[in-house]
């Protein structure tokens, strides 16, 4: 038996659930506090006390957070950071941070160093690493007092050696340095991968402080179980790992909702609609995991290419404003002020929640306050809500076949009828806490993304190599070896390179090993 607490720290609400193996025992939605940790403490306290659970019985705490995304977007609490790139003479045309918004580059100091090194797509070196160059970089970093560094090397997803070597040199020569090698974060596409590594590097100090605060909140409650943070691919990382890779938490919110929806409904291949207060997110689940975005993802104005769920957001939520003549729904919303401003709560603003109550599909607040609403308006607004949801689902589907649709989130009362294009519509138990459930049940993964030259190797041998390495990575991260399976294989031969190169991406996941007590 294992008891887990899942916590999702959103911009508005902090959701917490206590799960006993696969069963939700207790859940709570509390406001997110300015210091974040108070909200977490409140959630923890409630789920433990309401279920009469001893703190010593808890086996693991899983937290999903938007803290690091917000720090980048708001340019707050970011560390001075340097980028070291290996690839000369190649890549000199476009140095690190060349495509960054100037204010963000300035915030972290904009220091970058171009050095020799790097590989070709087939693994041959571009040029030999020159330790004297790295030594000079180290001396400059020491002189400037910079202790956060991102290291990128051309085709490091094909060969990771150089980034690792340089990281080791810098750790030896720069006291107190923290180094982020780009291959540990991104994939093919040097600028985007390097960008992700630099963002990670500048968040390391904040990550250390935040994770320490999370740890304190948990230990103050008397919980001694390990702490995990959720990643944007729907899997977990240990608190120690999260301190090193805070960037991997970006967009973990929608991922947690989708994973929770899969778990609560028992469906592994489906569309998920997560209706919040202001917006709704739609994504596709394949094999129980969110489909990943294939194009570059912009964070705070910076292009990155690391793993992100492919999510379409649209302006429909429980707090969306409803305007008449002509009928308009959203994108403005009363947001978290819904409990003061919506008609059913005694306010003066007509919201989608009021429409749902007037239509008789939801019981929230005081129904008598919406009894006067024009029946035709209510019907038209409900129809519009339905159309908006159907269009969004259709947009994200991967084929014309009807697929199951899972509806979750606090605002999901709005969707009352089965959506067109859905083979079935499921609103599972605990739908409003799907995000926290997703955090609680998250698994551990390992991934490989590499270009293989097939000159001296068969395609099957390359695939086997990638699969065994991905599985090994999952086990190293804490997965129970007996549960590890390959969930995703992608094999893309490279255009314009006849027959000799292919890019292979493999992901393996397994259940987290938690020691029962």
């Amino acid at each position, binding site marked *: 038996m294992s008891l887990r607490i899942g916590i999702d720290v959103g911009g508005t609400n902090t959701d917490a659930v206590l799960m006993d193996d696969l069963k939700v025992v207790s859940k709570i939605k509390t406001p997110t506090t300015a210091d974040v940790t108070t909200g977490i403490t409140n959630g923890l306290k409630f789920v433990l006390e309401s279920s009469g659970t001893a703190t010593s019985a808890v086996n693991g705490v899983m937290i999903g957070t938007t803290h690091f995304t917000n720090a980048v977007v708001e340019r707050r609490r970011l560390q001075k950071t340097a980028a070291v790139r290996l690839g*000369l*003479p*190649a890549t000199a045309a476009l140095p690190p941070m060349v495509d960054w918004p100037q204010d963000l580059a300035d915030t972290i100091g904009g220091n970058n160093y171009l050095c020799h090194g790097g590989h070709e*797509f*087939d693994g041959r070196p571009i040029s030999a690493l020159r330790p004297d160059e790295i030594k000079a970089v180290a001396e400059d970093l020491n002189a400037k007092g910079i202790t956060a560094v991102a290291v990128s090397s051309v*085709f490091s997803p094909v060969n990771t050696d150089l980034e690792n070597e340089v990281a080791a040199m810098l750790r030896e020569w720069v006291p107190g340095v923290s180094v982020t090698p780009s291959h540990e974060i991104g994939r093919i*596409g040097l600028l985007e991968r390097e960008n992700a590594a630099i963002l990670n590097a500048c968040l390391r100090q904040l990550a250390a402080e935040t994770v320490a605060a999370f740890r304190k909140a948990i230990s103050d409650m008397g919980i001694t179980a390990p702490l995990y943070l959720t990643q944007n691919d729907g899997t977990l990382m240990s608190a120690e790992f999260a301190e090193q890779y805070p960037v991997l938490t970006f967009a973990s919110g929608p991922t947690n909702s989708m994973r929770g929806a899969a778990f609560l409904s028992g469906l592994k291949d489906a569309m998920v609609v997560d209706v919040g207060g202001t917006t709704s997110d739609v994504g596709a689940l394949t094999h129980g995991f969110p489909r990943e975005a294939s194009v570059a993802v912009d964070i705070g104005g910076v292009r990155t290419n690391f793993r992100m769920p492919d999510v379409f957001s649209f302006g429909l939520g429980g707090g969306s404003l409803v305007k008449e003549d002509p009928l308009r729904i959203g994108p403005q919303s009363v947001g978290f002020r819904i409990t003061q401003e919506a008609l059913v709560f005694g306010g003066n603003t007509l919201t989608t929640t009021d429409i749902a109550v007037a239509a008789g599909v939801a019981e929230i607040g005081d129904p008598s306050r919406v009894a006067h609403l024009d029946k035709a308006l209510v019907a038209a607004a409900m129809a519009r809500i339905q159309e908006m949801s159907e269009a969004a689902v259709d947009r994200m589907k991967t084929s014309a076949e009807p697929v199951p649709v899972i509806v979750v989130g606090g605002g999901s009362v709005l969707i009352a009828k089965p959506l067109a294009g859905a083979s079935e519509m499921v609103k599972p138990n605990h739908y409003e806490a799907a995000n926290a459930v997703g955090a609680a049940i998250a698994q551990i993964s390992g991934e490989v993304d590499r*270009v293989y030259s097939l000159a001296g190797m068969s395609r099957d041998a390359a695939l086997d190599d990638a699969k065994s390495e991905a599985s090994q990575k999952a086990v190293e991260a804490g997965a129970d070896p007996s549960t590890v399976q390959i969930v995703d294989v992608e094999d893309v031969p490279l*255009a314009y*390179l006849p027959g000799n190169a292919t890019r292979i991406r493999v992901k393996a996941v397994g259940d987290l090993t938690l020691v029962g007590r």
Partner: protein
Amino acid sequence: MSMTLHIEDLPDLARGAAFLGSGGGGNPYIGRLMVERAMRETGRPLELLDLEELPDDAFVITTAMMGAPTCIVEKLPEGMEAAHSLRRLEEHLGRKATATMPIEAGGVNSMIPLVVGMRLGLPVVDGDGMGRAFPELYHETFHIYGVSGTPMVITNDHGDQTLLDTHDNYMMEWLSRGIAIRMGGVAYIAEYPMDGATAKRVSVSGTIGMGLRIGRAIREAREQHLDPFDHLIRSMEGTSYSPARVIFTGKLIEVFRRTKDGFALGTVKIQELGGPRVMTIDFQNENLIAMVDDEVLAVVPNLINILDAETAEPITTEELRYGQRVKVMVVSVPPIMRTPEAIAVWGPRTFGYDVDFEPLT
């Protein structure tokens, strides 16, 4: 009349180059950043020369990159490769170039000659040899109308160079492709050296300006809340890229892809909105043919573009996904691109389709 290209023009040009890419040509992003950087460092704009005003005794060397899109986005250039190719070719020929010019107006190659122009202080001829994007180095009006692509120079990031002299342009493509692979999957070239009189005879005129005009029209429509398709079509009226028209509106219901001999092949199906018809578009890096049932509605070398139904932003073949709402636009290409000689090099039969090219009227 010559014009100058400024840093603010580059996003429009990149968007227009993607449109002229007709679904292919590679993402212009990296090239655009290189031109931006050169303009920021030098503080200068770039001079574009009208093809028609080129003196007969001018000397033009075209510049470009060749290789795999995956390698371009990973092994970024040193920055001077294409310029070094041009300089080496000048040395070999014993003659200084008075301008450079694109070989391909669509995709990333719209940008590389601009980098060369900025770095060497050379003007860039407003024209090219494809008028769009195509896969191979002999897909050129230069080739079609009798210009030898070689002597040609290929340069990599180290400054390693190969000088090719081949008996025809097909052998040039074959050898240079192999060399580009050995150079790391991407290399930068200078080829098709020619004098001004020849360039005027064999080039597609005004294609940089055309890219700029198209990219600007799509942006303006968005900013001013105009119908982007009307605005776009109107922007092309009276140019050599007309007529242009929307031939289908629908939703993408299927994308099928495979790779053969290094090319990305595929088929996309689009279901008519509010109707029973389904359009099929085949692509080989670029969109080649659009059909409804057995009726051919558009075919190469005319531009076949799949555009976002709301914004008219071009969607490249890599970006096609189920569920997208799209409009399909066909654009007639300039006459020099659809003579019998040109159709023999890039007409539908050269891509394996048993149909004749019919001009758009």
